[in-house]
C-alpha cells in the first residue's frame, strides 16, 4: 500500500512544491526529480503486484490491468520531464512564455500526473470522474500557455468540449449508482468498482445500457473518438510539445482504460439479456469510424503536430475497436497496443519538438531536409514514423498483427476495412514524412541542441517488444486479459 501511496501522492506534493518555487532553473530539475521518484515508486508497486501482493480496498484497487498502465504513465512522465527541462528553458529564452508561465507549467505538469495516476488506481467510479475532469483542468491552461489567438482558441475548445463530454459521463455515473442501489445491500458502496463488478449480473440491464451510452460518449470524448474528436488536434498542435507527448501518450490511455472498466460492468449486467454484446458493438462502431476517418484526415494536414494527433485518434480507434471485439486475443493485442502506441507516440512528439525548433515552424511545408541538418532528429523522426506505421520489427507491428488475426477470427469481413485503413494511414504519414526528412534543407538551417535520449529509450523498448516480449510482461498482459475477458489466451 505504501508504494501505491508514494506513486500517487509524490506528484501531488511535487506539484505544490513547484507552485511555490520561484527559481526557474531549479524548477526543471525538481520536476525531473519528482517524476523519477514517482517512477521508482511505481516500479516498487509493480514488483509487489507481480509477486502476488494484493493492493485493494475501498479507495484504491490495483490489479494487473492498471498496474502496467501506472508504470507506463510514470515512465513516460519521467522521459518527458527529461525532454521538457531543456526544451522549456529554450522556449522561455526565446520569450514565448513569461517566467510565471513556466512556473505554472511545472506545477501543472505534476498536477496532471497526479490526476492520471489517481484515475488509474482509484476503486471509486466517482473519484475516477473527478480525476479525469481534474486532468482536463490541469492541462487546459497549458494548452493556452503561448497566449497566441490560436492557442487560446484551442484551449477554449478543449475546455468546452471535454467539459460537456465529461458532464455526460457524470450523468452515466449517476445512473450506475442508481442501478447499484437496487442491487447492493450497502448503497454507499454503489460506486466502488470491485463491489459493482462482483454484483454486475444483478444490475438492472436497461439502466446499465443507458448509463453505458452516456459513459461512452463522455469518456469517449477524452479518448478522441470520432465525431467527438474536434478538441484533440487543436489542443495537441497549439500546446507546448511536452504536453502533446503527455496528452497523446497518457491521457488518451487513461480515458480508454475508464471505458474498458465500464464495459466490463455493462457486459456483466447485459449478459443475460437479448443483446449481451451491446457495449462491445458500440465500441467497435465508434472505434472503426475513428480509425477510418482519422486515417483519411492524415492526408490533408499542414501542421506536423496536428498530423500526429490524427494518427493518435487513428490508433485509439483501433484499440477501442479491439476492446469491442472482446475475446482473449483481441484484448491482449489491444493492451499491447496501448503500451507500444504510448511509447512510440510520445517519442515522435519529442522528436517533432526538436524538429520544429530546427525549422522554426510547425508547418509541414516548411520543414525540410532534417536528416541533412541534424541527422539525429531526422533519423529519430523517420524511425518513429516507421514504427508507428506498423512496420516490422517494431512492437506496433506485433500488436496490429494480433488485432488483425483476432478480427479475421471473429469478424472476417471487417479485416478488409482494417487493412484498407492501415494502408491509407501509412500513405498519409509517408507522403508528408518523406520531404520533411529527405528534402533539400533551406539555406542557413542550423542544428539545435537536442537530447535524443528519451526518443532512443522509447524506440529501443518498442523494438524490443517487437522482437521478443519479455516473460514478465506477457504474464502481466495475460493476467490483465483474463481479468477483462474472463478467458485466457489459447
Amino acid at each position, binding site marked *: 500500500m505504501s508504494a501505491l501511496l508514494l506513486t500517487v501522492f509524490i506528484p501531488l506534493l511535487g506539484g505544490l512544491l513547484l507552485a511555490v518555487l520561484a527559481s526557474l532553473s531549479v524548477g526543471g530539475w525538481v520536476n525531473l526529480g519528482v517524476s523519477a521518484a514517482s517512477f521508482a515508486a511505481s516500479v516498487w508497486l509493480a514488483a509487489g503486484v507481480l509477486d502476488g501482493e494484493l493492493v485493494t480496498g475501498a479507495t484504491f484497487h490495483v490489479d494487473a490491468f492498471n498496474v502496467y498502465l501506472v508504470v507506463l504513465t510514470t515512465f513516460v512522465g519521467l522521459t518527458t520531464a527529461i525532454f521538457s527541462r531543456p526544451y522549456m528553458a529554450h522556449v522561455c529564452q526565446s520569450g514565448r512564455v513569461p517566467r510565471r508561465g513556466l512556473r505554472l507549467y511545472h506545477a501543472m505538469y505534476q498536477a496532471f500526473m497526479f490526476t492520471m495516476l489517481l484515475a488509474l488506481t482509484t476503486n471509486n467510479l466517482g473519484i475516477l470522474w473527478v480525476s479525469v475532469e481534474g486532468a482536463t483542468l490541469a492541462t487546459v491552461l497549458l494548452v493556452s500557455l503561448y497566449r497566441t489567438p490560436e492557442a487560446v482558441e484551442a484551449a477554449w475548445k478543449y475546455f*468546452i468540449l471535454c467539459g460537456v463530454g465529461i458532464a455526460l459521463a457524470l*450523468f452515466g*455515473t449517476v445512473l450506475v*449508482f442508481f442501478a447499484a442501489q437496487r442491487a447492493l445491500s450497502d448503497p454507499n458502496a*454503489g460506486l466502488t468498482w470491485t463491489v459493482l463488478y462482483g454484483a454486475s449480473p444483478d444490475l438492472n440491464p436497461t439502466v446499465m445500457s443507458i448509463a453505458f451510452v452516456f459513459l461512452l460518449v463522455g469518456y469517449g470524448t477524452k479518448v478522441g473518438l470520432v465525431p467527438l474528436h474536434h478538441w484533440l488536434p487543436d489542443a495537441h498542435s497549439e500546446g507546448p510539445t511536452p504536453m502533446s507527448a503527455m496528452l497523446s501518450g497518457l491521457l488518451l490511455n487513461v480515458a480508454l482504460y475508464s471505458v474498458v472498466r465500464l464495459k466490463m460492468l455493462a457486459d456483466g449486467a447485459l449478459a443475460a439479456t437479448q443483446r449481451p454484446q451491446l457495449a462491445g458493438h458500440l465500441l467497435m462502431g465508434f472505434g472503426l469510424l475513428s480509425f477510418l476517418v482519422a486515417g483519411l484526415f492524415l492526408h490533408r494536414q499542414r501542421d506536423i503536430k496536428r498530423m500526429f494527433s490524427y494518427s493518435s485518434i487513428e490508433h485509439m480507434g483501433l484499440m477501442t475497436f479491439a476492446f469491442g471485439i472482446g475475446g482473449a486475443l483481441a484484448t491482449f493485442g489491444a493492451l499491447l497496443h496501448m503500451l507500444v502506441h504510448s511509447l512510440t507516440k510520445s517519442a515522435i512528439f519529442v522528436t517533432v519538438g526538436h524538429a520544429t525548433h530546427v525549422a522554426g515552424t510547425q508547418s509541414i511545408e516548411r520543414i525540410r531536409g532534417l536528416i541533412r541538418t541534424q541527422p539525429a532528429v531526422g533519423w529519430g523522426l523517420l524511425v518513429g514514423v516507421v514504427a508507428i506505421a506498423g512496420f516490422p520489427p517494431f512492437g506496433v507491428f506485433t500488436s496490429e498483427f494480433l488485432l488483425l488475426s483476432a478480427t479475421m477470427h471473429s469478424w472476417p469481413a471487417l479485416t478488409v476495412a482494417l487493412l484498407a485503413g492501415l494502408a491509407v494511414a501509412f500513405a498519409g504519414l509517408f507522403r508528408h514524412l518523406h520531404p520533411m526528412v529527405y528534402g533539400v534543407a533551406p539555406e542557413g538551417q542550423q542544428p539545435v541542441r537536442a537530447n535524443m535520449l528519451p526518443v532512443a529509450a522509447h524506440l529501443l523498448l518498442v523494438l524490443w517488444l517487437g522482437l521478443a516480449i519479455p516473460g514478465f510482461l506477457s504474464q502481466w498482459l495475460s493476467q490483465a486479459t483474463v481479468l477483462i475477458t474472463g478467458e485466457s489466451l489459447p
Partner: protein
Amino acid sequence: MTTIAQLSLLQQAVFVLAALVLFASFSLLAQVRLTSAIHAFAWQGALVAAVTTLVAVGSGVHHLYLSAGMTFVLKALLIPWMLHRMVRRLRLGRHVEAITHPALVIMAGASLVVFSYWVALPIERLHFVATRNVVAVSLAVVLLGLLMMVARKQAVAQVLGFMSMENGLFLAAVAATRGMPLVVELGVAFDVLVAMVLFGVFFLQIRESIDSLDVDRLNRLSESEES
C-alpha cells in the same frame, strides 16, 4: 402507477420545484441580457438547493443537508457573484446578444424535454422511487445546458450553459440516488469551482486575443485552412 395526487405533500413539492428548475433553464436559454441570465442561473441554483433540502427531509439522509448548503453557497452565491464581477470588469453589463432564430432554439429545447422523458421511460417503468420523474427533468436540464452552449455565441453565456448542466447533474444525483457519496460530491464541487476560476482566466485571455467575447470569432483553427 400512482397519480400525482396520491403522493405525499413533500414529494409534490419536489415535483413543483423540479419543474421550476426546468423553467429556469428555459429562461436562461432565451435571456439575451447577461446580467439577467446570471440572475436566472442563481435562481436555478437556489431551487436545486431547495430540492436537495426537501429530499433530505423526506429521506433522513443527513449528508444531503451538507450538499444542499454547498450547492446554495456555490451555485446561488459564489459562481453568480464571480460572473457578475467578470461582467462588470469586462464592461458587458449592457451587452445584448442577438440570438439567431430564438423561436427555433426554444422549440428545440421543448423537443429535448420530450426526448429526455423518452430516454427516462424505461427507468420510470421500474417503479423505483416516487421522485423518478425528476430524472427526466434533470436530463432535460443537462441537455438544455448543452443546447445553450451550442446556440449562444457569447463566452459568458456558454459558461452559464455549462454551469446549468452541472445543476442538472446534481439534481439527477439527488433525485435518483439521494446524493452521491460525500467524497465524490466534494470532488465534483471542487472541480466546478476550479473550472469557474479557469473560465474567469479564459475570459481575459479571449478578450486579449480577439478583443471580444464572441466565441464565433475564434475560428482560426479549422481543417479547411488554406495558408
